[in-house]
C-alpha cells in the first residue's frame, strides 16, 4: 500500500510544484505519510505567500454585487487570479460568486484555489454548479484537481456525477484523492454492476495499480465487494492483475485484498497460470518477507496447486538465515505454524534442517 500511496503523493507534489513527476520518483523511497506531510507544508508555503495586491482586490470584490464580481473575474482577472481570490474570500462569498460563473471558467480556476479552502467553498455551492464543474474537469482529464475535490463532494452530487464518469476516470481520480478515507463511502455509492465494470476496466486499461490503491484505501464491506468482483473476473484479467503485481512488486497492496476472499474465490486466484511461474512465486515470497504479511499470504499458499506450493517451499528454503528468522517471528506472532508445517514437507533436506534449527521452531518443538 505504501508504494502506491507514495506514487500518488509524488504525483500530487509534482503537480503542485509543476515539475515532471519522474523527477520526484525518488520520493517513493520515503514513507508516504511523510511525503504527504511535506506536500501539506508545501501547500502552506506556496498559498500563504499572497501578494498584498490580491488581498486588496479581494477587499474591493467584497464591495461589489456578486454578479458584477463574477463578470469582472471572468472578463478581467482570469483563472489564476480568480482562483487565488477564491482562497482569500470568505467561503460563502466565494461560493456566491462562483455560482454565477460558467462551469468551464470555474474548472480552469480550480487548480489555482488554495487546496485548504476547497471544502469550505464546495459545501456552500449549489449542487448543480458542482456537478457541472466536476464534469468539465473530467472532460479535461484533470484527475489531480478532481482528487482534491472528491473527498468534499456531498452524496447528491456524487450520485449525479459518478454515473457520468468513465471507469478510468474513477480509478485515476480515486488514486490521487486527497481524502482517501472517503473512498469507502464513494465506492459504496456504486452498484455491483458498475463496480464490476470498473474492475474490468482496471484490467483492460492497464490500471490495476490505481484499482489496488483504491481497494487498499477502503476496508470492511467495500474491500470485500471489490475483492470478490475482482476474483469473479475471467482468468485472463485476473492473471493480468497478478502479473502487474509481480512486475511492479506490489504484493504489499494485493495480499491484504486477496486475504478477504472466501475459500472458493481464493482457489480461483490460486489456479491462475501466473501463480505457477517460479519467478512470480519467488517474488511473492520475497515480498512477504519484506512486508511481514504472513497472515495474508499463507492461506493462499494452502490452496495453491502442489507444484506451486513446492516452488514456494523452495523459495522459502532459499531465504537467508535472517529472512528465515523474520519468517519464523511473523508466523509465531500470527499463530500460523499450522499453515507452515505442510510446506516443510516440500522443502529439501538442507532447507528443512535450517528451518527446524530456527530458535522459534526449536522452542516450539521442545516446548
Amino acid at each position, binding site marked *: 500500500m505504501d508504494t502506491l500511496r507514495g506514487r500518488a503523493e509524488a504525483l500530487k507534489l509534482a503537480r503542485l*510544484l509543476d515539475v515532471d513527476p519522474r*523527477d520526484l520518483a525518488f520520493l517513493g523511497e520515503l514513507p508516504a505519510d511523510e511525503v504527504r506531510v511535506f506536500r501539506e*507544508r508545501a501547500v502552506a*508555503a506556496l498559498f500563504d505567500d499572497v501578494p498584498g495586491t490580491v488581498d486588496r482586490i479581494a477587499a474591493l470584490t467584497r464591495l461589489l454585487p456578486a454578479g458584477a464580481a463574477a463578470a469582472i473575474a471572468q472578463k478581467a*482577472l482570469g483563472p*489564476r*487570479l480568480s482562483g487565488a481570490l477564491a482562497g482569500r474570500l470568505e467561503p460563502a462569498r466565494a461560493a456566491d460568486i462562483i455560482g454565477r460563473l460558467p462551469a468551464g471558467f470555474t474548472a480552469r480556476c480550480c487548480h489555482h484555489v488554495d487546496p485548504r479552502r476547497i471544502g469550505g467553498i464546495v459545501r456552500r455551492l449549489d449542487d448543480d454548479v458542482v456537478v457541472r464543474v466536476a464534469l468539465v474537469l473530467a472532460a479535461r482529464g484533470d484527475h489531480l484537481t478532481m482528487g482534491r475535490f472528491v473527498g468534499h463532494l456531498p452524496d447528491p452530487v456524487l450520485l449525479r456525477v459518478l454515473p457520468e464518469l468513465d471507469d478510468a476516470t474513477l480509478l485515476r481520480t480515486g488514486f490521487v484523492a486527497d481524502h482517501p478515507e472517503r473512498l469507502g463511502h464513494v465506492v459504496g455509492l456504486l452498484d455491483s454492476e458498475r463496480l464490476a465494470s470498473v474492475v474490468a476496466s482496471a484490467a483492460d486499461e492497464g490500471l490495476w495499480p490505481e484499482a489496488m490503491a483504491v481497494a487498499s484505501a477502503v476496508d470492511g464491506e467495500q474491500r470485500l465487494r471489490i475483492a470478490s468482483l475482482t476474483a469473479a473476473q475471467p482468468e485472463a484479467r485476473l492473471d493480468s492483475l497478478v502479473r502487474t503485481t509481480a512486475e511492479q512488486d506490489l504484493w504489499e497492496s494485493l495480499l491484504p485484498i486477496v486475504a478477504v476472499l472466501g475459500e472458493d474465490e481464493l482457489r480461483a486466484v490460486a489456479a491462475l497460470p501466473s501463480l505457477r511461474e517460479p519467478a512470480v512465486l519467488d517474488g511473492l515470497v520475497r515480498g512477504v518477507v519484506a512486508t511481514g504479511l504472513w497472515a495474508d499470504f499463507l492461506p493462499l499458499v494452502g490452496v495453491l496447486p502442489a507444484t506451486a506450493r513446492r516452488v514456494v517451499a523452495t523459495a522459502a528454503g532459499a531465504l537467508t538465515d535472517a529472512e528465515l528468522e523474520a519468517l519464523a517471528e511473523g508466523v509465531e506472532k500470527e499463530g500460523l505454524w499450522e499453515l507452515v508445517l505442510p510446506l516443510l514437507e516440500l522443502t529439501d533436506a538442507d532447507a528443512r534442517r535450517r528451518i527446524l534449527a530456527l530458535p522459534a521452531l526449536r522452542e516450539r518443538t521442545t516446548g
Partner: protein
Amino acid sequence: MGTEEHALLRTELRAPLPEAFGSLDGARAALLADALRRARERRLSGLAEAVEDALTLVPALAREPVGRMLQR
C-alpha cells in the same frame, strides 16, 4: 539532516522537514528546494502578471490611480 541543502529546503518549506526527508542526499534536497522556490516565484509572477493584464482593461485615465491603490 544537517547539510546546507537540507537547511535550504527547510527555508523554502518555511517549516520543519518531516523526519524521513533528512535521509535524502544533498542533490535531492537541493532539487526539492529549487522546485519549491521556482513554484513560489512562478505563482507570484503569474499573479502579478494577471493583475497587470486586468489593469489594461481599466480606462486609461483611471488606470494609474487604480494601479497605485492596488499596489500601495
